[in-house]
């Protein structure tokens, strides 16, 4: 249906919504539906992290060959679903394309085909020449069309939110921002989050308090119109400057003996710098109370320097933590080889959806075991469910908003000795 494609581009300004166009075509097809069928790809059911617009666009392009070679019309719906109305298109041709899409998202539970299950969750087919099937498909699309209105409003809201995040970080604005970063008042932006050892019988002990600068506050003060996270590389650059400020905050205050352990986020380059040597002298024998966190991207960029920094820290009594891992990265990396004292995994709300994927869970459990249970921390824990998930894979050290609340409620009780 090449004409239709052209028509779309021609009437761009007053373009109808995909759902409306699809319903119109269905109305036309209804009268002579012989040879027509529909394929509905449920990309709306993907994990949130896979529902990114550029992923969906790339997936949509897989259908180009069908549209070009056969009598088929393609619709990209507001909820991210894809629909193809086909007329006399060999089913095998579509299988190939659907398998391509399945391949693209093969880490997503949506694409898993259960041999015992008749239903393929990724794609559903309707023979439009059969009245019942036509009716059922029509009502599905009608429902999506109603939903689309709400989605469009949400999209608008998201767009505004995106705009609020600001302009992307570029080398051009980075120069200015990094200058401001070096001059801005920063001590009052220091925050802390507790890492807690949770005992199965209830109660807990503080493993350490992570000290960090609130990026939200910092952004408001130095770059309210810029999205500091738009480029991972330029953000890393900024974080190196931030390290200097962090170490300085410590060096400028008279240090009292630390009651609890504390942890700081630093770049490898910072650990190997003069600033850190100065900090070390200032800390005066309290290294054993300190944990230095380093990011996995930084580590992977230069494993040799990481090894050097890790040894240097551990020899002086600091403990080393590898940060920035997720349940997904754990399937591709063996953090145990990094010989750190701690490994921090960020919990993502999707972790819980993977119940059906028992194999993944078993693997993560194995990694936790290999790394040493005492060294693994589950971070970004914001619900009790996350704690349960963590306990399930053998983790007993947690960090996150939920943990902060938990610690607060516990603080009324008599305080125990800090955990080692």
């Amino acid at each position, binding site marked *: 249906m090449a004409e239709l494609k052209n028509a779309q581009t021609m009437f761009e300004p007053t373009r109808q919504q995909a759902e409306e166009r699809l319903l119109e075509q269905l109305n036309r097809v209804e009268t002579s539906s012989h040879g027509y069928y529909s394929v509905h790809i449920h990309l709306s059911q993907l994990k949130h*992290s*896979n529902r*990114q617009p*550029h*992923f969906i666009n*790339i997936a949509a*392009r897989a259908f180009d060959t069908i549209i070009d070679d056969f009598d088929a019309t393609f619709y990209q719906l507001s909820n991210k679903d894809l629909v193809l109305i086909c007329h006399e298109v060999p089913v095998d041709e579509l299988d190939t394309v659907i398998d*391509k899409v399945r*391949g*693209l*998202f*093969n*880490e997503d539970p949506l694409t898993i085909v259960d041999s015992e299950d008749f239903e393929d969750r990724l794609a559903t087919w309707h023979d439009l020449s059969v009245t019942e099937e036509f009716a059922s498909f029509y009502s599905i699309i009608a429902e999506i069309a109603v939903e689309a209105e709400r989605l469009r409003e949400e999209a608008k809201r998201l767009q505004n939110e995106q705009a609020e995040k600001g302009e992307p970080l*570029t*080398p*051009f604005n*980075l*120069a200015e921002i*990094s200058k401001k970063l070096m001059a801005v008042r920063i001590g009052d932006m220091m925050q802390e989050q507790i890492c807690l050892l949770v005992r199965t019988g209830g109660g807990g002990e503080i493993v350490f308090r992570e000290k960090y600068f609130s990026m939200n506050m910092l952004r408001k003060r130095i770059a309210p119109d810029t999205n500091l996270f738009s*480029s*991972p*590389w*330029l953000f*890393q*650059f900024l974080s*190196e400057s931030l390290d200097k400020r962090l170490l300085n905050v410590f060096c400028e205050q008279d240090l009292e003996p630390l009651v609890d352990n504390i942890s700081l986020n630093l770049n490898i*380059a910072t650990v*190997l710098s003069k600033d850190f040597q100065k900090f070390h002298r200032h800390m005066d024998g309290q290294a054993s109370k300190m944990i230095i966190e380093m990011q*996995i*991207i930084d580590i*992977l*960029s*230069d*494993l*040799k*320097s990481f*090894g*050097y920094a890790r040894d240097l820290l551990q020899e002086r009594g600091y403990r080393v933590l590898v940060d920035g891992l*997720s349940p*997904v*990265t754990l*399937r*591709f*990396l*063996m*953090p145990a*080889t*990094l010989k750190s004292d701690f490994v921090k995994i960020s919990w993502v709300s999707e972790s819980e959806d993977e119940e059906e994927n028992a194999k993944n869970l078993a693997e993560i459990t194995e990694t936790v075991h290999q790394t040493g249970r005492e060294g693994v921390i589950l971070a970004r824990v914001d619900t009790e469910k996350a704690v349960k998930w963590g306990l399930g894979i053998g983790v007993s050290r947690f960090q996150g908003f939920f943990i902060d609340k938990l610690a607060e409620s516990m603080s009324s009780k008599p305080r125990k000795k800090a955990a080692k």
Partner: protein
Amino acid sequence: MATQTESQKKLPSQENLLLDYIRRLEKHKKGRKVVHVHLSKLRPFNRRDQHIRMAAGHFEKLIKDMHGQVFVLKNADLFFIFKSQVLPQTETAVRKIQFVFSDDPLVTEDGKDGVKFATWYDAEKDFDKILKVVQGLSKSEQNRKKEVRSRMDARAVLKAKQEQGEPLTPEVLARIETALSRADLSNLVRRQFVCNVDRKMVPVQEFSELFISIKDLRETLMPGVNMLSNRWLFRHLTETLDLRMLSMLTKTDTISLSGDISFNVNVATLLSREFQNFDDNIAAGRRGSMIIELQKEDIFSDLESFLFVREFVQEKGYKVCIDGLTLESLQMIDRGRLGLDMSKLLWHPDLVDGGEPAMELVRTMVKHDGPEKIILIRCDSREAIDFGHTVGITRFQGRYVETLIAEDNRRRELLRLKRRIERN
């Protein structure tokens, strides 16, 4: 120090061979002349390996007739020592080389303010002068080698980088990226071959990597700026260069695309509109002969995007290669899981120094993946190739491999000539 002299003994460089030759020349200096052709002073884009190979080829006939000996140095300079009676032929050969580079300032300004295309010596009269020049060249090559070794130590890298010019700052990066949008980069595209090298050191070309020479980019755009001084700013720069490379690959008249090729990109680039355009413009059959190289830290900075885009490009027919693996990352990353078609392992003396455990690790990797999937890169000495052979690696890339190709070409050329002579 002992190890260094030892490795020098093991691997005589052209510089050392030349020094040795000149010392022995002292007894036979009568009736000999020397010409030093300063090809190192050519503009970078004229100094590619094939140019130098071709230039050296002009002395071939004289060498074959036992009238002289040529040395091609690391910095691209040529040294030709010859019998006085072939002075006219030698002058012709040098003029022919000069003619090839007739648009280069080294030739157009020959004779002006100390610019000199070639220096001529009489071995008998100028022996001390020659010896001094050659000693200097040999020494600077040793320093370069030492530098290469010491560059691998993290602290030394930092120190060296600090001494190597203005560090890359956001302001400088912004200036470079602005300049990049206007500059014609096709001159800066370099090609290095991945070869199957057997135990007889015969290279067979498998595919070639296309890349933008950072050194020449720096010379052209921002002399005095050390682009590698900040890892993160440099990575950002590579994303800009990716886009330029893709647009050059789309316009095949800009650079030649013969044979299977590989190129480095960022994961973010593969998700961009520019890559879609590139993919739309490329003949479907070509995709199978293209290898996309990705850096490990880039892969792990957004693993989900990588997994998605890897599937997408592989399905289209491209091959995917992880670049920059080291002994440490090899132990840590589950490459099988990442679904890669190839892996590039960085040559480093550590691989040998690591002893049997390190060798076993690489050997297992090669056995597991298959030798055609592993490439040992940055091979700048024979030591690297020898190491590869002991662990089962057969594919190599690097300066030393380029030398092997040049030698192989020369040998073939000679063989061809010989056959022709025999036929006549």
